[in-house]
């Protein structure tokens, strides 16, 4: 049962199983374990980013595709929901219309990007995605009549989802289901071909796999899941703007989460996103406490001043990449 649910993807480490179980349980009961809106916000953001990072891992970790357009698809999902809910009558029909339109646009865009550039060198593909994503960012800020420009769009959501508890469980349930679906994809015969492409594309072709087809499908799937993650995030925030979706800072966050968790592992997305989002939200508070407790000591309070939190986050990344080059999941599996 559990094996089928996880598509036979072995944890390969007791510690990993324990950590994942703890994260999933914490997310499942977050509204009851962690009081306060801030905590629930963090939990919902973790759910969304697990999904977003997992869909990026499908590209980077499993297929070896380097794309910088992932936040664009995330944004398309967010804006799809936001535009539909702010222009149409608020309700399920608007939500469905916005989500479906966003999915269609993402599918078309990812297919076109794939068609024109997946055949060529990886670096060229990366540049194309970078260019398209920048263009999309500019477009979103220019079309302010539609997108709200830099301010973004604030909107109302369907009645049933207005209680935070209901909205949270929609986000959690959808993220869990989609994550398990991705886990199935990477453990399917198709997913194995993706691995072979990452390993030796030339040989995969010689076996008879038309790798460009596989890469295009992976690219489209990754884009669709990122779109859904964007839609979920918009529903949770009841807001979509450039800084919550399209910003390149988010693209970098995704990259870091994949690397910290462990590329090509899927489970790494869960751990990477959980650690990252929690650190992003609580490091500052933790440092404030630390800094105050060190009051009187020379230099130390300054060093741990809350304003330095970004510096410490950076230090944490460098250390984690240095000590766990294969990510946390890779490391846990190796010690076993």
């Amino acid at each position, binding site marked *: 049962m559990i094996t089928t649910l996880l598509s036979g993807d072995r944890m390969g480490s007791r510690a990993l199983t324990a950590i994942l179980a703890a994260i999933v349980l914490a997310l499942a009961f977050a509204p009851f374990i962690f009081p306060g809106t801030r905590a629930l916000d963090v939990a919902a953001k973790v759910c969304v980013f697990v999904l977003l990072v997992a869909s990026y891992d499908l590209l980077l970790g499993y297929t070896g595709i380097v794309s910088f357009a992932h936040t664009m698809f995330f944004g398309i999902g967010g804006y799809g929901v936001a535009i539909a809910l702010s222009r149409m009558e608020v309700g399920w029909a608007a939500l469905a219309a916005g989500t479906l339109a966003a999915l269609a646009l993402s599918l078309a865009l990812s297919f076109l990007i794939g068609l024109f550039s997946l055949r060529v060198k990886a670096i060229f593909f990366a540049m194309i995605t970078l260019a398209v994503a920048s263009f999309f960012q500019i477009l979103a800020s220019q079309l302010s009549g539609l997108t709200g420009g830099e301010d973004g769009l604030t909107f109302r959501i369907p009645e049933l989802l207005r209680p935070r508890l209901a909205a949270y469980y929609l986000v959690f349930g959808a993220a869990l289901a989609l994550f398990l679906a991705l886990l199935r994809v990477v*453990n399917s*015969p198709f997913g194995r071909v993706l691995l072979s492409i990452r390993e*030796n594309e030339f040989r995969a*072709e010689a076996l008879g796999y038309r790798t460009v087809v596989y890469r295009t499908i992976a690219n489209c799937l990754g884009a669709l899941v990122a779109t859904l993650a964007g839609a979920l995030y918009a529903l949770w925030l009841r807001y979509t703007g450039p800084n919550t979706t399209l910003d390149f800072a988010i693209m970098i966050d995704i990259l870091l989460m994949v690397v910290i968790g462990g590329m090509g592992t899927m489970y790494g997305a869960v751990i990477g996103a959980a650690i990252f989002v929690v650190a992003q939200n609580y490091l500052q508070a933790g440092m404030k406490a630390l800094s105050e407790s060190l009051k009187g000591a020379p230099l130390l309070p300054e060093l741990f001043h809350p304003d330095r939190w970004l510096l410490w986050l950076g230090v944490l990344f460098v250390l984690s990449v240095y000590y766990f080059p294969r990510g946390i999941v890779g490391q846990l599996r190796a010690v076993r």
Partner: protein
Amino acid sequence: MTGTHPVLETRDLTIRFGGHVAVDAVSCRFDPGTLTAIVGPNGAGKTTYFNLVSGQLPATGGQVLLYGEDVTRAPAPLRTRKGMGRAFQLTNLFPNLPVLENVRLAVQARAGLGLNLVSMWSAHVELIERAEHYLERVSLLERRATLAAELSHGDQRKLEVAILLALEPDIFMFDEPTAGMSVDEVPVILDLIHEIKAQKDKTILLVEHKMDVVRSLADRIIVLHQGQLVADGQPEEVIASPVVQEAYLGVGKSA
């Protein structure tokens, strides 16, 4: 489609790298049940000829015909699906995947299951069993869980052959399959090639430097020299011919 056409034919097949003509207007037909050895000194263009036939390199001139159908512009995967199978001279594996998975991917390609996104790969037990069968045939089954990169050179060569077997092609293209193998490993591969020959309906192309191997296996020998086909015929004739003595054996290349 079969019948009147040879299984495989090249007509004036040519590739130029800048000014250098690596394969120069090679015309040749290959028939089922026949093992053709392709010999020639280093740099003669043997591997490049294979690359043109199986689609790893685009020809600058001439044609490749598969069952009479022009596949000169067809991409490599399509040629594989039409029955060509290739073992590479320079070992060409999935280094960070287990030995078994290297072969299973070939079995899966042959079964046409690659676009299945919804089932678990591990649920297709028959594919795994077939992969194990091919590993057993090259005596590599004990190493099934080892990463391909961690195999010895000889074992990597065997794995390369197991992958080719797993593709179940009509046309087998071996590029120096025993090169760099220790003496006791070579018979495994040679026995396998004998077995494939015994099936009668397979077309086998074998690039090989070792003349004793060529003598024991070949029904026919073609000689490439500086990209050109300079001799083609029965093994004894070709080996005895002056052009071969001079162009190839005379160079003292027999190891």
